[in-house]
C-alpha cells in the first residue's frame, strides 16, 4: 500500500512489477491530480478506436497525451500538429511501457494570437484548395419558395430573421435547430447544412447560416473545417450571417453571400413584396396604356388611310351625279342641235329659190336696165351737141383771127405751112401773109 522508509537492503520487501507500477500510478495521480499544461502538439494521430494520441512538447521536454474518443468530439478546437495549446487533464501512467502520460479533458489554443494564426493558416490552406473561389459562388435566388435557416432555435437571431422576412416577403421557413457554440456545435451545423441539401421534399432554395455576435471562441464552430467544407460544397446557395459586421468567420468566405448580420441575411434572401407589387402594377399599367396607345395610333392611321381611300358610295354618287349632269346636257344639246339645225334648214330653204323666180327677177332687172338705156338715148346726142356748141364758141373765142384783128398776121409758105421764125425763111421765098380780112402774097428779101 505504501512505500516504507528506507531500510537495510535485506529488509526491502520484494514487489512485483505490477505492484510497483500500480503504486507509482497512485502516487502520480494523487500528487498531481488535475493539471493545466501548455505546449505544442506533435505526432498527432487518431487511432482506429477514435482515441487521439499526441505529444505535447516544448523546447526541452516531451509529454505523451491522450484524448479519449468521447472527449475528442467535445473539444472546442480540432487539434492539429504544431498547435500551441493549453490542455487540462490528469496525469497518470501507462504501466505497460513504463510511461507517464496525460489524459486530456479540454484543449484550447494558447492565447488569441495563436488562435488567430491557426485560423489564418486554415484560411490559407482552404483557399489554396479553391473553396473560396468566386467562380464557386452560386447566385442567390431572387424569390426563394423555401428558406432554410441553420441557427439556434432560441434567442434573438431566429426572431430577427423571421421578423424581417415577415416584413419583406413572408415565406416558408424551415429552421434546423443547432447549438451554435460549445460542445458538438460544429458537427450539428455541418449535419444541418448537409441535411438540408439531402432533402428531397420541401428542400430549401436558399440556406441562411446564422449566429449572433460573440467572442472569437464563441464563434469558433463557424471556423471549423467541417463546417466550412459543408458550406462550400452545399448545392443550395448559402448566406452566412455570423456575429456582427466586424466578425468574420471562415464560413463567410465559403458562403455564396456574406451578410453582416442575421437581419441583413433575411433582407438578402427575399425582395420586398410591396415593391414588387408596385412594380407589377406599374408594368401592368404601362402594358395597358402602351397597347391602348398603339391601338389608337393604328386606328388613327387606318382612319386616315380610309379617308384617303374614299367611300365607294361617295365615289359612286359623284359619278352618278356626273352622269346625270352629262345626261342632262346630252338631252339638252340634242334638242338644241335639232332646233339649230331646223333654223338652219329654214334659213337655207329661204335662200333656195326657184329658177322661174330667178328668171322673173332677171327679166325685171333687164327691163329696168332697158328702160334706163332707152331713157339715156335722147340725152346721148343732146349732150355732145351742147358740148360742141360750147366748144365752137370757145374755139371762136380763142381763134387767131381775133388776134389778127388786133394787128397781127400769120406768115405761111406756099404750101400753107406757118413760118414761125426768121430762120425758117429763105431769101426770095414766096410767102403768104394772112390778115384778118384776107391774104396777100409777098416775097422775102
Amino acid at each position, binding site marked *: 500500500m505504501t512505500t516504507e522508509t528506507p531500510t537495510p537492503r535485506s529488509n526491502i520487501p520484494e514487489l512485483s512489477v505490477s505492484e510497483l507500477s500500480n503504486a507509482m500510478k497512485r502516487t502520480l495521480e494523487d500528487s498531481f491530480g488535475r493539471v493545466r499544461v501548455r505546449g505544442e502538439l506533435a505526432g498527432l494521430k487518431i487511432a482506429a478506436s477514435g482515441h487521439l494520441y499526441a505529444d505535447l512538447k516544448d523546447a526541452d521536454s516531451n509529454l505523451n497525451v491522450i484524448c479519449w474518443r468521447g472527449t475528442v468530439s467535445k473539444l472546442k478546437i480540432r487539434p492539429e500538429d504544431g498547435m500551441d495549446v493549453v490542455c487540462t487533464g490528469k496525469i497518470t501512467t501507462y504501466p505497460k511501457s513504463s510511461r507517464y502520460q496525460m489524459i486530456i479533458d479540454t484543449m484550447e489554443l494558447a492565447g488569441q494570437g495563436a488562435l488567430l494564426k491557426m485560423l489564418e493558416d486554415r484560411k490559407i490552406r482552404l483557399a489554396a484548395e479553391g473553396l473560396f473561389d468566386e467562380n464557386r459562388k452560386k447566385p442567390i*435566388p431572387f*424569390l426563394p419558395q423555401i428558406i432554410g435557416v441553420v441557427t439556434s432555435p432560441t434567442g434573438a437571431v431566429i426572431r430577427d430573421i423571421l421578423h424581417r422576412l415577415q416584413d419583406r416577403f413572408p415565406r416558408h*421557413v424551415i429552421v434546423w435547430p443547432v447549438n451554435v457554440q460549445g460542445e458538438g456545435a460544429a458537427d450539428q451545423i455541418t449535419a*444541418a447544412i448537409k*441535411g438540408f441539401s439531402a432533402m428531397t421534399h420541401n428542400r430549401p432554395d436558399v440556406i441562411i447560416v446564422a449566429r449572433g455576435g460573440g467572442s472569437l471562441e464563441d464563434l469558433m464552430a463557424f471556423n471549423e473545417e467541417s463546417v466550412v467544407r459543408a458550406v462550400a460544397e452545399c448545392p443550395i446557395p448559402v448566406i452566412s450571417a455570423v456575429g456582427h459586421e466586424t466578425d468574420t468567420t471562415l464560413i463567410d468566405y465559403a458562403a455564396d453571400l456574406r451578410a453582416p448580420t442575421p437581419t441583413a441575411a433575411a433582407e438578402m434572401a427575399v425582395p420586398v413584396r410591396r415593391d414588387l407589387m408596385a412594380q407589377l402594377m406599374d408594368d401592368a399599367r404601362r402594358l395597358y396604356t402602351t397597347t391602348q396607345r398603339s391601338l389608337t395610333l393604328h386606328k388613327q392611321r387606318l382612319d386616315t388611310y380610309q379617308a384617303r381611300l374614299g367611300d365607294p358610295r361617295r365615289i359612286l354618287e359623284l359619278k352618278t351625279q356626273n352622269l346625270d349632269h352629262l345626261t342632262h346636257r346630252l338631252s339638252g344639246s340634242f334638242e338644241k342641235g335639232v332646233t339649230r339645225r331646223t333654223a338652219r334648214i329654214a334659213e337655207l330653204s329661204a335662200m333656195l329659190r326657184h329658177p322661174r323666180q330667178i328668171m322673173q327677177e332677171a327679166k325685171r332687172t333687164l327691163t329696168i336696165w332697158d328702160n334706163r338705156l332707152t331713157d339715156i338715148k335722147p340725152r346721148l346726142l343732146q349732150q355732145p351737141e351742147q358740148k360742141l356748141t360750147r366748144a365752137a364758141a370757145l374755139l371762136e373765142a380763142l381763134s387767131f383771127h381775133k388776134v389778127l384783128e388786133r394787128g397781127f398776121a400769120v406768115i405761111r409758105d406756099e404750101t400753107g405751112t406757118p413760118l414761125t421764125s426768121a430762120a425758117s425763111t429763105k431769101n426770095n421765098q414766096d410767102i403768104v401773109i394772112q390778115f384778118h380780112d384776107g391774104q396777100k402774097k409777098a416775097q422775102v428779101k
Partner: protein
Amino acid sequence: MVVMTGKSAAVDSLTFEAALLELEGIVRDLETGKSALEESIGAYERGVALKTHCEKKLREAQAKIEKITVGADGKIGTAPFDPQE
C-alpha cells in the same frame, strides 16, 4: 396562335423572377412601338398572363415556419416552429 398557346402554357412554370423579367421586356418592346400590330396584340396577351402569374406568386406569400425534428431512428421530420417558445 398555336405558338402563343404553347408560350402561354409555359407561363405557369415560370419563376416569379423570370416572369417579371419577361413582362418588363414586353412592356419595353411595346413602348418602343417596334413590333407589328399582330405581334403586339400577342405580346399584350402574354404580358397580361405574366402579370397575373406574378400577382398569383405574390399573393401566395404566406409565412409558414417549421423546424426540423430528428427522430430516434435518425429520420428527419418537420414540426411547427414558434420562435417565442
